[in-house]
């Protein structure tokens, strides 16, 4: 980790850390130093770790009532009619 990587990664994570850049760099370096021990891992993983051990979970494909868009849009920062309002993206 260095300043350039930090700025780039923060940009991807959509957070601006300019004001606390020094502090973040120091903290992240110490965390990454700490987790470095995983590089001692030997062996391979042929499939993803499955913690619940559930396999092939299916359910009947039946139509159920869903939340009304009116209720859901109450939480939108800005909404108009049945839509969430946002700046144009084109």
């Amino acid at each position, binding site marked *: 980790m260095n300043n350039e990587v930090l700025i780039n*990664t923060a940009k991807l994570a*959509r957070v601006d850390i300019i004001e606390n850049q020094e502090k973040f760099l120091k*903290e992240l370096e110490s965390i990454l130093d700490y987790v470095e021990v995983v590089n001692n891992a030997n062996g391979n993983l042929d499939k993803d*770790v499955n*913690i619940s051990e559930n396999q092939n979970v299916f359910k009947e494909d039946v139509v159920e009532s869903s939340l009304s868009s009116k209720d*859901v849009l109450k*939480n939108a920062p800005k909404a108009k009619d049945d839509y969430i309002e946002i700046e144009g993206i084109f």
Partner: protein
Amino acid sequence: MTINDFEKKYNKENINEYLAQVEEQDKKINSFLYLKNDLSKETGIPIAIKDMISTKGVVSTAGSKILENYIPPYNATVINKLENNGYFVIGKTNMDEFAMGSSTENSAYFTTKNPKDLTLVPGGSSGGSAAAVSAGFVPISLGTDTGGSIRQPASFCGVVGFCPSYGAVSRYGVIAMASSFDQVGVFANNVKDTKAVFDVIRGKDEKDATSLDLPSEKVSGSNIKIGIPENILEGVSEQVKVAFENTVTSLKKDKIEFVVVPNTNLQQALAVYYILVPSEVSSNLARYDGVKYGKREESNDLIKLYTKTRTKYLGSEPKRRSIIGTYTLSAGYSDKYYKKANILRQQVKDYYSKIFESVDLIMTPTTPTTAFKLGAMLTPIEMYLADIFTIPTKLAGLPAISIPANTDDKLPVGIQFIAGHKKDLQLLQISEKIEKCLQTY
């Protein structure tokens, strides 16, 4: 206050007096982010809910400013189950922002105090739920446990805290932090009440594909064998050491057999956790972009709108973990961090499977120390170390419970008992026996 105590003491006539008392006394503790203002229409047992769990029509912030005015349009499955089985939600409890922390000081709202000593932290991240039970405000509360967020505050506040097997309780409607670790669990004053609530909330839910029904095998009443990982007391505080050793002595008198089992590499387990959890956090918290719900900082450029919103309304720890997770999942580094961590996660899972071939439970301290001072200003790594005994079980999705030890000292010490995957019912059954033998309840 147990469920039984509540039922004896309160009824329809005096329920609002009870509420007024809780409201008054919580001014000292600050366990609730939100408390209902009228209980006259409620029936049943009051339960406090960690603000990580969605409650229909009641603001659910996850301890974050970004969700300050978020009112879920639906209930989490656990809330529906409780309300259909004689419980009612009395309020929402304080927590570390998005459950990231071990002291509840990362809450974006205020700090909760430890009812046993107001100068100490209650632990975290479910600190409000632990404090509410410890202070006698409610007989039971729900928390969530990703790396120890139920067991650690239970230990600090002197109550029972139970984290079920991964999948035993539906996560539908639980605000996500790290989805392959998050699990809803229970705080109570005794194992009996813990089990009563767990029996209501557990079970397969179509809305959570990782949820499952537990097999209901009984353990034989006698011949309980508990494994203690070798050198487990290395580096723990004197008080925890004494409480642990006294617990072993008491349980031996009750003909419980102890054997030493190999320890897992704790430092390595912590490292695995602090790669995998931020990785999942960076993905789960990407949804807070200011578009669909939660707070928004306006900008005429969409990327800037996302960035300004997240910069202003997310706290330091969520930002730190989002950046770390973005880094550990990025091209070039995911082989080095994420994949290696998963190899080790599988090895920890295999380690536990092997141990549980020969013992019923594993016993460890819940935390290396008793509750620390408010405002101790720990570094992130120091804060992470508070969870060193609770994190390994989460890598394997195992059920574990913290039970208060019998201690002469004023400050509580929790002892952790861990069982094999899906052995939750056996764990609770043996825990009742342990509690009786320790006479802590």
